[in-house]
């Protein structure tokens, strides 16, 4: 008989792996990607593809240079590229998309030690970096057959009210993957059903934005609805704030994170100078995350504290 294997218990294991989780996130982002293509056309698809390709390539080359094992097969670089692409306007020059992707992977992720070690979300941070570095990002793209000249959020500031249904379906201006709330909701529900993300984060985040807006906007239900259906809140709450590495490990922590991000988002949107409420809010909460994790530790069974 051949040598028997000796190993520490347990001897059975879940089928879930990093790769399977990332694959679920990619599947969940497909509706939003397709919606982005339908709304903004082929150029949207090329921006997304560029981001994915450059992200994967950057990670591959970086690991080669520093002589680390190749990690591209875990698909996390694909997710970063996809998310970054979906967060950019369809008119983003492809070279800028490439620079942003390199920044996301090399500066935000790999230098800190690769997957699991980054302090902030690579896609969000790259988007913020690009916003500051390239003026083109300040000008959002508009649907191919639209006459609109401003995003819903800009319209809102100007006192105009876009159609709620249009907002929900996504036939409005904005980044490629952020406009169709319907598509994002489908993806988000998929992730919750697959137990990849906890519903606490999106619920507390979107809920806080809703309630906070409702309170400061003279109890206007419509104002609150417009606010949650505009901009990058859905993609942020379902796909970016839920990034494992940069968000809390427990539901208690996710509640704190979601409420914090919600408050900051509304503050920036209503009183800030940048149209970047969600990105800045999540980035700020990412930085605060190590503390949130300490504040939200689970109670130990049978230990008095």
């Amino acid at each position, binding site marked *: *008989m*051949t*040598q*028997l*294997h*000796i*190993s*520490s*218990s*347990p*001897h*059975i*294991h*879940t089928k*879930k*792996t*990093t790769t*399977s*989780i990332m694959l679920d996130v990619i599947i969940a982002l497909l509706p939003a990607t397709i919606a982005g293509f339908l709304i903004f056309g082929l150029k949207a698809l090329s921006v997304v593809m560029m981001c994915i390709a450059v992200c994967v390539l950057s990670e591959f080359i970086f690991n080669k240079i520093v002589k680390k094992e190749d*990690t591209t097969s*875990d698909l*996390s670089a694909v997710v970063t590229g996809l998310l970054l692409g979906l967060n950019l306007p369809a008119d983003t020059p492809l070279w800028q998309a490439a620079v942003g992707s390199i920044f996301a992977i090399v500066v935000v992720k790999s230098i800190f030690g*690769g*997957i*699991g*070690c980054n302090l902030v979300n690579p896609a969000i941070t790259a988007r913020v970096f690009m916003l500051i570095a390239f003026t083109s990002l300040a000008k959002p793209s508009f649907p191919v057959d639209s006459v609109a000249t401003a995003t819903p959020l800009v319209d809102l500031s100007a006192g105009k009210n876009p159609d709620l249904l249009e907002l929900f379906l996504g036939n409005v201006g904005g980044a490629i993957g952020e406009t169709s709330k319907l598509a994002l909701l489908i993806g988000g529900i998929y992730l919750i059903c697959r137990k990849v993300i906890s519903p606490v984060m999106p619920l507390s985040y979107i809920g806080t934005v809703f309630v906070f807006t409702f309170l400061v906007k003279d109890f206007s239900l419509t104002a609150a609805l417009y606010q949650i259906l505009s901009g990058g809140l859905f993609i942020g709450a379902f796909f970016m704030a839920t990034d*494992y*590495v940069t968000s*809390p*490990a*427990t*539901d208690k922590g996710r509640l704190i994170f979601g409420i914090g991000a919600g408050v900051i988002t509304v503050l920036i949107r209503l009183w800030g100078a940048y149209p970047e409420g969600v990105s800045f809010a999540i980035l700020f909460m990412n930085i605060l995350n190590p503390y949130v994790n300490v504040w939200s*530790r*689970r*109670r*130990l*069974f*049978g*230990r*008095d504290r």
Partner: protein
Amino acid sequence: MGRFLKGVRLPHRKNTAGSVAVKMTVPESVIIPTKMHIGAPAIPTVKKGDYVKVGSLIADADNGLSVSVYSSVSGTVDEITELLMSDGTTAPAIRIKSDGQQTVSEDITVPVVGDKVELVKAIKESGLVGLGGAGFPTYAKFSMDRKIDDLIINGAECEPYITSDSLIMTEFANDILYAIETLIKYFDIENVVIGIENNKQAAIEILKNVTSSNEKININVLPSIYPQGGEKVLIYHTTGKVVPEGKLPIDVGCVVLNSSTTAFIGKYLKTGMPLVEKTVTVDGGAVKEPKNVIAPIGTTLHDLFEFTGGFKSEPAKVLYGGPMMGISVPDLSFPVIKNTNAILAFNEAETVIPKTTACIRCGACINVCPFGIDPPAIARGLKNEDMDAMIEAGATLCMECGCCSYVCPTSRPLVANNRLAKQALREHAKKEKEGK
């Protein structure tokens, strides 16, 4: 804290459920260790060449925490040797060559029990240890000063594959009832709960029928969530009581007995036959005929597998116990001991554990832990030799149930780390003590 502690839903794989136990043909020889329990090894009372019968005393309980060992076969003592046990320690073991007759010792008499002291004495003399878990001597649970408020019978059997407890619950429900009623009588127990996972309907029905006349006995049907049978978990789920860290169940007035342990007490009180055989679930992808086997204690795994038709494919891993907490052994020379409830042989495909990759901080391990332990924080504490960090993260609470490692998508050795952390903390505490 909610009604139920966290845990995982595992594949049940109870392939042998509903089958009857098959009594094994007597092996040519058995090797019976003198330490099949927590505490001091028993002291051999036989020497090479002695003739022993089934139920003959072959090793007497040491002073302190220890229980006696009896022969499981009739035959001649072949040798007394040091045996490496599955937990890595060594202890003297007695090898007996069977004469195949299974002649029963004339020393076997039905114990006379008239009070509490005699009952505990009888339980001690039966050689009984906890049959489902770590092998804690059963008599010791009833030798504490504190009054027993709740007696909890553990019929959870939450590990995949294992069905020996359910089988005993269905076949020997009357023995379980007899043991419980005797314990109620002498220990004046007010509340008895039998906790059973809801995937054992047959056992639930039979025990409900058998115990219906006694209002002190309640059947508590629990969800099949691992580790339902963990002692502190079961106590919380059946009584709502929290056993404080570092304390014993008796400190909150509870005693937990495994269902097979309970059935044995009943049987012993009726017959006086000490613990010499064990119902063991033999299963796993490499086993030809998975079944529950009533095996003489000391039967080698080799003989056991021989009895179940050998292997249908080359075994790649052999386990004592279930796949979540079982111990893997290097070869088949190890014997079935008192607390063996299952022997599993996995084939190559079942043995593969995915490669360890970088932690993605998903929090699955933290959220699944029944006790709220933070395994990654323990691992960091271990790496930095930070004792306080390990304690703060809950290392000392870990029961090694394996949920954290099971759910980890990056296959990190979290339970192994927790074990190392507990060891480091023990050594540190020892050093502190010596330093003072």
